[in-house]
């Protein structure tokens, strides 16, 4: 930027292009701090508006309209929340339902219209809860290992981060091959243990477990790194005090480590839950959406299934976002009183 000296000399000898450049820079110099801030935010918000805010609003409006399966127009008139009612009552034109339960008089007071693992909401929630619980436990273990001083720690850390950095499609490919009966040993091993059936990738329950394991393998590292950050912020002298006071390792963990790591841990869990609720690529590249239908699977199937149910697809997409929003509010409300707070 050669404009500094130009401003001082008045820029007489500079060509026109530079003079207009000077004018812009001069004007920028004279802006108030707030206006300057908005100017700097403009590119980011322009991109976010085009790619995120506009599509979100548009998706929402689409979700309020009727599916038009025939004719030139892909969408019919406004039907309000009908699409949402349909997907929540299991009456949508979807190949697999979002939620399909009816209330009954006898225990357990709900009837499943379709099997548990064929209802997208349950599949996704179960996936999110189980994977986050396992990732938290394993992440704690990994963080404890990385928190120690030992030779080669750098390389152990590389090994632990590595699965996190693997592209989703390759993560899927590894577990697809491992449990593909023709190639992998996983299928034989699990059959021998009596856990899996003959073709685990085509069986909802077996495939669900495979996808869980694949996700835990990849994402525990993320948990571990955030927990590690929490662990390293703990004042070491607290442990010495506890040891002198005769606290057992479990007491030291429960009374010192856990409360101090809690804020970092909650943020990590929140992020992982949000991510797990959006699972799609892993399923698509291993068992496929027919075997394990997640919420995002439903949207993609509705959109590309050739049945032209775009409004339903939009409603499912938005309902997914609402479920995620609900989970976030649960985290925020439930853990508001945690020491250190969530944010």
């Amino acid at each position, binding site marked *: *930027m050669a*404009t500094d000296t130009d401003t*001082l000399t008045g820029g007489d000898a500079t060509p026109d292009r530079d003079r207009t450049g000077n004018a812009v*820079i001069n004007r920028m*110099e004279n802006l108030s*701090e*707030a206006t300057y*801030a908005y100017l700097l*935010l403009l*590119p*980011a*918000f322009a*991109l*976010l508006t085009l*790619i*995120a805010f506009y*599509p*979100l609003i548009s*998706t929402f409006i*689409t979700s309020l309209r009727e599916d038009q399966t025939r004719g030139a127009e892909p969408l019919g008139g406004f039907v309000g929340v009908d699409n949402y009612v349909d997907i929540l009552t299991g009456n949508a034109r979807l190949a697999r339902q979002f939620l399909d339960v009816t209330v009954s008089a006898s225990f357990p007071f709900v009837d499943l219209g379709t099997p548990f693992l064929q209802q997208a909401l349950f599949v996704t929630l179960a996936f999110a809860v189980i994977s986050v619980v396992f990732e938290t436990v394993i992440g704690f*273990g*990994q963080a404890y*290992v990385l928190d*120690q001083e*030992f030779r080669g720690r*750098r390389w*152990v850390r*590389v*090994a632990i*981060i590595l699965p996190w950095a693997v*592209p*989703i*499609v*390759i993560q899927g*490919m*590894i*577990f697809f*091959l*491992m449990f*593909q009966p*023709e*190639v992998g*040993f996983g299928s*034989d091993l699990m059959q021998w243990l009596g856990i899996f059936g003959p073709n685990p990738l085509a069986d909802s329950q077996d495939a669900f477990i495979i996808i869980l394991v694949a996700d835990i*393998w990849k994402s525990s590292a*993320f948990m571990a*790194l*955030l927990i*590690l950050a929490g662990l390293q912020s703990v004042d070491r002298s607290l442990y010495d005090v506890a040891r002198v006071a005769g606290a057992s390792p479990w007491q030291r963990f429960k009374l010192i480590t856990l409360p101090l790591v809690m804020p970092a841990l909650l*943020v*990590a869990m929140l*992020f992982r839950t949000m991510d797990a609720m959006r699972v*799609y690529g892993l399923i*698509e590249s291993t068992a496929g959406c027919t075997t394990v239908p997640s919420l995002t699977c439903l*949207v993609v199937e509705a*959109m590309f299934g050739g049945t032209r149910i*775009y409004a339903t697809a939009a409603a499912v*997409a938005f309902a997914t*976002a609402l479920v995620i929003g609900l989970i976030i509010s649960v985290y925020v409300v439930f853990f508001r009183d945690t020491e250190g707070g969530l*944010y």
Partner: protein
Amino acid sequence: MTDTQSRTETDDTAVFDDAQNAELDRGPFQQWAADSIENPERVYRAMFYVAAIFFLFTTLFPFYWLLMVALTPEGQLQDIVFTPNGFNPGAFVEVFQTIPFHWYMFNSFVIALASTVLVLIIGSLAGYAFGRLEFPGKVPLMLLVLVISFFPPAAFFIPLNDLFNTSFFLLEPITGDGTLYNTPGAMVLPLSAIFMPLAIFILTTFYAQIPDGLEDAARVEGTTRLGALFRVIIPLSAPGVATAGVLTFIAVYNEFFFSFLMTDGQPENWAPILEGILAYQGQYEVLYHLMAAASIIGVIPVAILVVIAQEKIVSGLTAGALKE
């Protein structure tokens, strides 16, 4: 495993133990058990080694196994656990002969680099505003950025798909038919927008840490506002910019949803590495060993990044997530 570990530990302190328990004739294991009772720290150390080896095994074994599958010749792919059935390193050449896998990799690199540059430029400006300037509406605007990460990519997809399939007169000289579908733009734009919030939060944290005095000094010297940003703030927060860059690159390279749906899967139409790996699943035969070999090749770039930039990745994930 515990046993060997403990035995070496016992050896180290053998002299000391002999002096203490000279009258007892114990085997190494009993010796270890007795020592453990006296000194529980030993047990924790042993547990630590067991845990470290366990985690190393579970994280690295899938990669090792993938390599064994890749090295096994086609037709002998049964029951591979620890060793390949045969030895066929030629698979790593076949990968490029069967389909133009290098083309897919090139596409992925271009898309990831372009997104990273875009995110860093736009995110730097926004991060500077959020980190160093005071203005009304700062917190609501930051929350608005954060809200984006709540939505599943599917919620953006339908209108974006329409938008990218719409012909724009202005784009006709560049893309031919005027649409963004099947161009890098169809992936760079949404991926930049989706991964920008994380970059903005990381950069905000780093920019906020630079002392005001340095910027003031530059301004007194006659530097323009933008000059101060690009010549003082950004160079000083180079580690933060590198962190945001590495994380964005990995995130874009690894992304599935848009990469899978925004092209028709042809390498000449900018399909990324993901489509390449899935392309070995042909109509008549599935080339499992090539899938494995291609997966290994696809992991190498991110593996190198992890080895080189592990500190940046750790600090970036921590700063980004804990800030949000």
